[in-house]
């Protein structure tokens, strides 16, 4: 079962997506956790969180994006330009951050030059940066427009019943992931951070029903597993998107265990649940906009600090790695204040800036992690 998860986390077009496509079903890509997956699911489609894995060049990404842009959307564009995302029937772009929202223009313009890389359905989903009565309403309206455009483009119907069912299903899998977190960060950790990330990544790219079933089995197995944290420093990983289990392995190979995280390809995607009562669209709006876990929600630093402190305490971490992808100022700068405030509370921190993509900086990263582990020994 872990092998199925690994397959789904390792490749873009993995066997489960292939099976889905062979059944004639639709796959919709999206780049950021602020896009409500439940809507896509309720339309009978596979919500697929796009990644930038496996790029070996940025020749296309660099043609459209400028030089000082986060390499995650650049890698996504590169893959799109190489037809690696040809299996996507549609894409929803959002204004998660500035680099990511410009994927909209850059992909469209690349589509003018490279035939066949722009999916027929290409939708922009505008997410406010604050939680206020009128921004909830805005987000609701965005959801309604998204539903309408999916229905019109694909000739499907998103019924209230289907939406409620999707909300319940996503809540269920998020609860299971929270349980997985308990097993990972409890007094006796039973799973590596590398495997935990693999499991989370798999969920962002496989049919939810199958994923939920796999999660249940995995949890049963894990409860019986032996603790693996003996003699290892317990770390928490915080900051920019990380969808690379090998990066976590690199940390763990130095003798640590990543027992908790606050990453958007990590626990941030399942910590909040959607209210199952009331108007489903309004509930989704509350769920997605209330999450202040990403620094794109400006002015909520104290909330994020509290969340990290709670988690660090619960997971009894020995230190925190605050990482950011180069040119990700949102996480990079906030990491600077986290460092000040966590260190002041006696939690050792290490800040690290890195590139997204193939791990070309292994030596430098390993050296820094070794030094950090020595510091907290």
């Amino acid at each position, binding site marked *: 079962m872990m092998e199925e998860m690994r397959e789904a986390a390792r490749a873009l077009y993995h066997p489960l997506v292939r099976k889905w496509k062979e059944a004639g079903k639709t796959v919709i890509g999206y780049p950021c956790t602020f896009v409500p997956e439940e809507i896509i699911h309720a339309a009978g489609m596979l919500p697929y969180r796009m990644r930038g894995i496996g790029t070996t060049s940025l020749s296309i990404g660099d043609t459209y994006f400028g*030089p000082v842009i986060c390499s995650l959307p650049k890698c996504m564009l590169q893959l799109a330009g190489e037809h690696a995302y040809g299996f996507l029937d549609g894409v929803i772009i959002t204004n998660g951050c*500035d680099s990511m929202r*410009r994927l909209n223009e850059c992909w469209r313009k690349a589509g003018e030059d490279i035939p066949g890389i722009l999916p027929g359905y290409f939708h922009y989903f505008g997410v406010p940066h*604050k939680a206020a009565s009128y921004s909830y309403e805005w987000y609701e309206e965005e959801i309604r427009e998204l539903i309408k455009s999916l229905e019109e483009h694909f000739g499907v119907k998103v019924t209230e019943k289907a939406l409620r069912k999707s909300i319940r299903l996503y809540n269920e899998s998020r609860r299971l992931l929270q349980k997985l977190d308990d097993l990972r960060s409890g007094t006796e950790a039973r799973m590596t951070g590398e495997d935990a990330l693999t499991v989370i990544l798999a969920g962002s790219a496989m049919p939810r029903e199958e994923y939920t079933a796999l999660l249940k089995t995995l949890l049963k197995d894990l409860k019986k597993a032996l603790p693996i944290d003996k003699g290892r420093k317990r770390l928490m990983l915080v900051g920019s998107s990380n969808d690379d289990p090998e990066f976590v392995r690199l940390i763990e190979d130095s003798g640590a265990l990543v027992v908790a995280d606050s990453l958007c390809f990590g626990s941030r995607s399942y910590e909040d649940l959607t209210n199952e009562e009331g108007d489903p669209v309004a509930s989704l709006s509350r769920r997605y906009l209330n999450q202040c876990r990403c620094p794109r929600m400006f002015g909520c*630093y104290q909330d994020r600090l509290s969340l990290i402190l709670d988690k660090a305490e619960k997971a009894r971490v020995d230190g925190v790695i605050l990482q950011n992808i180069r040119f990700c*100022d949102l996480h990079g*700068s906030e990491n600077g204040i986290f460092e000040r405030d966590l260190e002041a509370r006696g939690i050792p921190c290490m800040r690290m800036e890195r590139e997204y993509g193939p791990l070309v900086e292994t030596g430098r990263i390993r050296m820094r992690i070794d030094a950090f582990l020595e510091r907290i020994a």
Partner: protein
Amino acid sequence: MKRETREYHYDWNIWSIIENASRTGDGTRKEYDTLLKLIPHFRDSLDAVIRWGEPGTLLLKLLAQCLNAVLTAHEQGKKVALTTFCFAPPILHAFDVVPLVLEPMTVLGTFILQRGTGEYLDYCCEVGFTETSCSSQRGALGAYLAGLGVRPDFIICDSPGICDTNANSYAFASAYLDIPFYQLNYPPFLTGERASAYHRQDFRGLISFLEEQTGHTLDMDRLRQITAEIRRQSELITEINELQRIVPSPVPGIFNLFLYSGNFLMGGTPGFTDLLESMLKYIRGRAAQGLAGTRSGKERARGFFSYIDHYTTDLRFWTFLENRDISHLGCILSTFWQEDAPYSMEHPDAVYRVEDGDLDAMIDSLAMQVSRMPMIKSIRGPYDAPHMWLDDTLTMTRLLRADFVAYFGTIGCRNTWGMVKPYARDLERAGIPALILYADAFDDRVQSWDAVIDKMQEFLSLRKIGTGRPARRPWR
């Protein structure tokens, strides 16, 4: 940060220099020329402003007043709001709150201080910023984070939804200094009832925030006075925009800097109206004589700067243009979208109108004005969407008959760097020579001014701009 840098408060330092500079135009020409010899570090910057006569001197006097207001605010029982240039300050004036606007403060430090703002830029990184964050905030913010300036009482920023790195700087400052924060947040498009309703509600949230912070309610009479002032200012700006269309353009390039720095710092105040009137008097005089606004009075080329200007030491950017008889036709920072601006005519739904019927109408006018501020309007959505960057640039270049477009930005500007290549390509396809400069407008260390000049000269010469031969533009 060097010890001697820590000796002076940044805002006091800038104020004292500007206060003194503002008096240099009061004496005789001979006194002024003698003075220039005695101030080798300030001479070029000072002269770049003062040589335009009354408008230059008036700008300095008004800047000194603004800075003094910041320095003395707390003594006078007033609150200081740390805010951004994208935010129109009239609502702050209506609450008698003193704006402390970071980006103009960075501009001032960049061209006035002998060593620029490098140490403050770096100080931000020492306390946590990424070195890739926008330099336009960091340049001055470093001083405030180091406690080398007036401590602001709260923060207002209106860049979320427009520019992450800008909003992030203010969010960082709020967390670091532990002071309240209000954000105006913008949808990805500008027009239509949905966007307008959002603007209005968000702006009312701001008013509640200001009431809470100041303990006062909005003063209707004061607001009415300010609204009348904005109306007058909008008319004057429109006249400048109109005159800029004449060939040769009678508007001195540096007047664009006067225009936007004035509006960012003192929009809605009588002082800004005086400045605009003084600038107009000068421009009308040039126009009557058929002279360009360059020093020689000649115009060899017309350039539109599609984003911001370049501010490093000594205001060399403007001098460079003037020495080559290139008219600076403005930049995104000098387009405000008042309803009767020449560029507004084709986009009636993209403009702001000044209404003063009742309180609601006045508040809505201010909300609309803020939502049309430079950058806030044109880079919130896809660059090629209606009313956005490309559309605006095409309108401006056509109306102003620009021979070329040049992009200066900051290395921190994710938003524009994310799209500037396709944008420049689209401009070229529309027949407009477009140059992207890989420099930082506030930080010479990214690319030296000499390298910038080389690039510009190479571009102008390769594209045969300003050579005397009329370029073939679609509108010629």
